[in-house]
């Protein structure tokens, strides 16, 4: 046992580092322990082939809270945008693409009625997102055993709802539990517009357009606009640059960061977290342990079911955290040629999801642990804005593909239906086939190819089930029910142990609010709380 610290924080993901920063700013002595060799967690840049680097997990920045940037002086610590306000382009094999940025939507298939409907829909849902964003910026109020602060927060939410006005309030209440499919059918004619918006609502989740909760998922994503991102943004050096900036900022405040030190478990004494034991066997003590690992990992593996009471073990075991998004990384020997896209448009966010039924069908397969031959893509070619990511003349393509099962029958390395092919090979081939339809000849340009399945993401980034959000973002798992009732205000329900990951309110995406809210709560509760 070495010297006593105030806080040991497990996991140098972006929320962990944000939390560490704020704790250190408040005078706490913080040690961050990270299993990986680089800070940032899901905000990571990796060289996946010699000279080719991609954002290995999250690829777009569209929600990072401005207060986090400002208060932690991230730009001073090296954070630099390579591109901002990128439009979303829904690709069409015939070259009739749809382009959407903020309140503007263009494309051959867009009627003026659709364009007007979008402007009005955008304005209205923007108000809802603003209301949500306010709720995201503070700890979730508790309903049972609530304090005055909780009641004020609830009253504030109620007032915010009222302030929407009668029509908007009842509209929000009507749609918020629903599914995007119906909402899109209600508002728009263009299959492309409907597909793009519904795709945005379910990225990273185990949901299809017809799944309830997708409207909430859409509003969740739209909070990014409230935080100042009209479209997606891209960081110089990839998302890992955010991890580096956060780590630099933390170190400048006296935070100690130990990399390459996996935690074997959280030490409990008399029902209280008192420190951690590393896989090396080293034991470290602290007054407070904060876990930026996802809640399921934190409770089931680091604390252990045996060290908690049955009701809590049951709740942990029921957290839904199966992710169905995979990452495809391609090293290309030149700029790919997408049908009907000029070079400038290639730097935007490219989406393959022709219509809502296409997405829903792709989702069908994953329900039965399969994958569709027609998956949906969210494509980034970051080397256009940031040539440092690829050798001269070369490019990298990074794509989020949905849906991929956590494990197909027999596992990803098991045999697929096609002869002499593993599931990994088969799914990769299907993805390239699909890309080939939109960018003929791209297959010949591929120098190296990497597929990260949900199981790979789980392994590489320590996310249970490979879920981006550290647990599904659905109405039974948000606010005071995130990650589960009894562990909702960043206090884990176990003395001395706090949570600060995306598995807490408000949730995932590279936003940083879970870490910021957690730090504020820990500070509020005082030393040794």
């Amino acid at each position, binding site marked *: 046992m070495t010297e006593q610290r105030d806080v040991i924080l497990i996991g140098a993901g972006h929320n962990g580092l944000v939390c560490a920063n704020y704790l250190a700013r408040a005078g706490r002595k913080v040690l961050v322990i990270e299993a990986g060799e680089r800070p940032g967690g899901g905000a990571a840049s990796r060289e996946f082939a010699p000279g080719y680097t991609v954002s290995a997990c999250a690829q777009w920045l569209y929600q990072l809270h401005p207060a986090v940037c400002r208060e932690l002086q991230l730009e001073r610590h090296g954070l630099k945008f390579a591109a901002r306000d990128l439009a979303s382009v829904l690709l069409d094999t015939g070259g009739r693409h749809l382009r959407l940025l903020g309140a503007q939507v263009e494309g051959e298939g867009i009627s003026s009625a659709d364009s007007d409907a979008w402007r009005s829909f955008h304005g209205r849902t923007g108000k809802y997102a603003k209301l949500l964003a306010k709720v995201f910026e503070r700890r979730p109020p508790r309903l049972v055993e609530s304090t005055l602060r909780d009641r004020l927060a609830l009253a504030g939410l109620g007032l915010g709802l009222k302030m929407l006005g009668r029509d908007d309030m009842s509209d929000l209440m009507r749609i918020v539990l629903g599914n995007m499919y119906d909402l899109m059918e209600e508002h728009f004619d263009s299959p492309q517009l409907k597909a793009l918006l519904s795709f945005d609502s379910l990225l990273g989740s185990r949901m299809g357009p017809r799944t309830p909760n997708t409207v909430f998922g859409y509003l969740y994503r739209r909070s990014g606009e409230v935080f100042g991102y009209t479209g997606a943004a891209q960081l110089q050096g990839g998302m890992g640059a955010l991890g580096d900036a956060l780590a630099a900022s933390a170190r400048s405040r006296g935070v100690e960061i130990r990399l390459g030190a996996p935690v074997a478990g959280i030490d409990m004494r008399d*029902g209280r977290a008192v420190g951690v034991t590393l896989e090396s066997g080293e034991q470290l003590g602290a007054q407070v342990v904060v876990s930026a690992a996802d809640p399921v990992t934190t409770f089931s593996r680091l604390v252990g079911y045996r060290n908690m009471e*049955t009701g809590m073990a049951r709740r942990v075991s029921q957290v839904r955290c199966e992710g169905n998004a995979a990452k495809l990384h391609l090293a290309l020997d030149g700029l790919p040629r997408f049908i009907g896209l000029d070079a400038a448009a290639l730097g935007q966010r490219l989406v393959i999801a022709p219509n809502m039924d296409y997405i829903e069908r792709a989702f069908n397969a994953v329900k039965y642990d399969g994958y569709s031959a027609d998956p949906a893509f969210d494509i980034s070619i970051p080397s256009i804005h940031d040539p440092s990511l690829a050798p001269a003349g070369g490019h990298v393509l990074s794509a989020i593909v949905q849906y991929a099962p956590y494990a197909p029958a027999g596992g990803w390395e098991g045999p697929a239906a096609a002869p002499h092919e593993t599931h990994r090979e088969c799914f990769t081939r299907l993805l390239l086939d699909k890309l080939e339809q939109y960018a003929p000849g791209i297959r010949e340009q591929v120098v190296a190819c990497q597929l990260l399945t949900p199981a790979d993401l789980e392994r590489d980034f320590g996310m249970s089930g490979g879920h981006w959000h550290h647990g599904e973002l659905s109405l039974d798992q948000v606010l005071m029910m995130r990650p589960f009732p009894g562990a909702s205000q960043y206090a884990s329900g176990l003395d001395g142990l706090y949570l600060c990951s995306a598995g807490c309110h408000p949730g995932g995406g590279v936003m940083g609010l879970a870490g910021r809210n957690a730090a504020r709560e820990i500070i509020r509760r005082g030393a040794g709380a």
Partner: protein
Amino acid sequence: MKPQSDTTMMLRTPFHSRVAAACELNDWGTWKGYTTPRAYTDMELEYFAIRSTAGVFDLSPMNKYRISGPDAEAYLNRLVTRDISKIRAGRVGYTVWCNDAGQVMDDGTIFHLGENDYRVCAFARAIDWLHWSALGFDVTVVDESMDVAALAVQGPTSCAALLAMGLQGLEQLKPFGLAAFPFEGDTLTVSRTGFTGDLGYELWIAADKAEVLWDRLFAAGRPYLIKPFGSDALDLARIEAGFLQAGVDFVPAESAVRTGRSRSPFELGLGWLVDMDKPVFNGRRALQRELAVGSRYRFAMLDVDGNKPAGHSFILSGGKKVGTVTSAAWCPSAKSNVAFAQLEMPHGAVGEELVAEIYYQRELHWTRVLAPCRVIDAPVFNPPRRRAVPAGAF
């Protein structure tokens, strides 16, 4: 124990053919889906069989769960409030278990049958909770409620009757001890346990040997005036002996619908079953808090003046309602009028004088009695023969 639903939708216990033949009153009640007699011939005669000779009760509907595997002890220690390591193999322990809120879900007995092998006997169905509790433990949980038939043989001549049936050496079995005897090619497990507060045993046998066990027991027990008894007589005996009944004296926590209606072990007078030295067990965090801030209620045994049972009475202090009665009976052997009450803190200290507001009816005429009562510190019936080793040869 298959349901035979030709005449009733209720389940029948493995002893049903014998029970039905003996149930002269045809006075059937229900217990966990089983049809069981409230009384066979005469409730009071049955009660006096328990106290003066030997009574036999079919407790087959009791929920029985087998817990086995390398982590069985650790599992049970996390599950219940007591320190299980103190229940040695061949012994039985009474305990309660709580939910995370420190509220009592049930009380019951744990049989330490052998190494890493236990049986939990519970009032309430618990299979889901037992399975949830198994997360992280290397244990197997099996519901053997239907496979194991059980008879309670209670009363002064119970040991003599069982000796006559051939259970040699049974008199040496200590209270809460376990013994096994060969029986018809099977094993008859006998525990010196019961719910009557008297000398008595419980017999556990494979369901298909139930009828032959009944026949041999009653044949051997005839000289010892053995007699079956129903749930009414049992209720009287258990109140006299000071035993709580789940579902009557407290609401099992996970079935309580309204907040605040469940009770902690401390509030049920069962704090002696809680071992706060264990680092983790269900309810510990909440119970620690309760110890710090105080309990809401206190369980009290009351000695009520007069002979009118104080069932469902309000308990008053200085004219103000401070609690209610959950169980009450005029106890014939102890010759005292006993009531179990839930009192609001700080009421219920031993010796406190209170008033029971009793309503009773005679020929449609209702009378209200304000009966003085006081909190007593021990059950009114607790004879030395209950504990004697060797068991008395009455």
